[in-house]
């Protein structure tokens, strides 16, 4: 269950943002939702983090009126009700597929996490094996 990866990316996305009905924040929620939707539910059976996240994201999107905010963002009129006064995000805030700190390079966090193939590129370079992972680290003295 890769929910921690999705949550990490969401935290990185929203770290420099003020929560609220702002386009940057709503886009981060959208990314979070897409990432969670890519996870196979079977791999998260009994994982409270996963199930609560599935519930919380739509709640936040409703609370912050994200549907309207993003619609107005795409069709700006002369009387926009929502001020977009967020601090600039780490990634510039307007690239839907950027990962934290990628400086505009190709997005790879979702690629590694996702079972779904990326659009474009060769399928031959997609990992299709087991998604059971291990970690190793070395630090200090």
């Amino acid at each position, binding site marked *: 269950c890769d929910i921690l990866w999705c949550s990490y990316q969401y935290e990185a996305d929203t770290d420099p943002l003020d929560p609220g009905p702002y386009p940057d924040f709503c886009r981060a929620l959208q990314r979070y939702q897409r990432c969670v939707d890519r996870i196979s539910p079977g791999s998260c059976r009994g994982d409270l*983090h996963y199930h609560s996240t599935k519930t919380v994201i739509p709640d936040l999107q409703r609370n912050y009126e994200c549907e309207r905010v993003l619609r107005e963002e795409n069709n700006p009129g002369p009387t926009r009700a929502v001020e977009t006064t967020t601090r600039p995000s780490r990634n510039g805030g307007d690239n839907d597929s950027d990962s934290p700190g990628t400086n505009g390079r190709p997005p790879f966090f979702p690629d590694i996490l996702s079972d779904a193939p990326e659009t474009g590129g060769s399928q031959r*370079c997609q990992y299709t094996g087991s998604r059971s992972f*291990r970690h190793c680290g070395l*630090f*200090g003295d």
Partner: protein
Amino acid sequence: PHLRTFDDLFQTCKVAGAWPLIYNDYLTAQVTNVPLVHGSGATATNKLTVIIKPFRDGECAQRKLYQATAGNLPTTFDDGTITSGREEGVVIIEVIPGEHVEIHIRYIATLIVIRQVGRYITFAVRMPEELIQYQGAEDMQLCVKGCPVSEQIDYATFLSQTTRADRNYKELRVDAIAKCRKAKIYDEYLDSCVFDLLTTGDANFTQAAKSALTDVNRLHPNASFLFKNRTSVFENASFPGYRDIEGG
């Protein structure tokens, strides 16, 4: 350095010189550890070498070399490129200039995190279990086999010493624990932070422990269970624990 293996063994080791962390059909990672200047016996990592091996006739990756050394954390491979393979199966990402670089290897779903903290290098990796190759009894991969027994340091015993000749030792230890706790470091990472501060006095190692904790929380598949209790080895030890040292 302090090592968490693929099997979650946590060790403190000497391992001076060059040692392999991982070698398999896809990549090789190797560290070089040097003695610290003041003769404490401790060593730290001042060089990391990663070799990406060719995959699918160069479609996903060509052979690439990445080398980080103390004072130089490159954002490219040795040949100046930031990707490898016609389909860019490998990408280097600079997260924080001079401090944090990541190598993403798409076709094996592997992520390598390299940091420079102070004058030393830290390493973390997440890779699929099925790709880890055990090389038998002669295996030297630190990530797979851990450090040889002769290279291991019993840091718990070291930290529990109360009869050191240094009259200030106890005060130093209380101070080190306070600094590491203040940085919100816990579990074995707290112990290693205290150990490093006591052996070197270099506050950069507090940051190294904090970064390692960040990486394990991000990369370990069971991090939320791993740190459920957030206890150090001292909590259940027979020697004086942190609470005793801190006077309750």
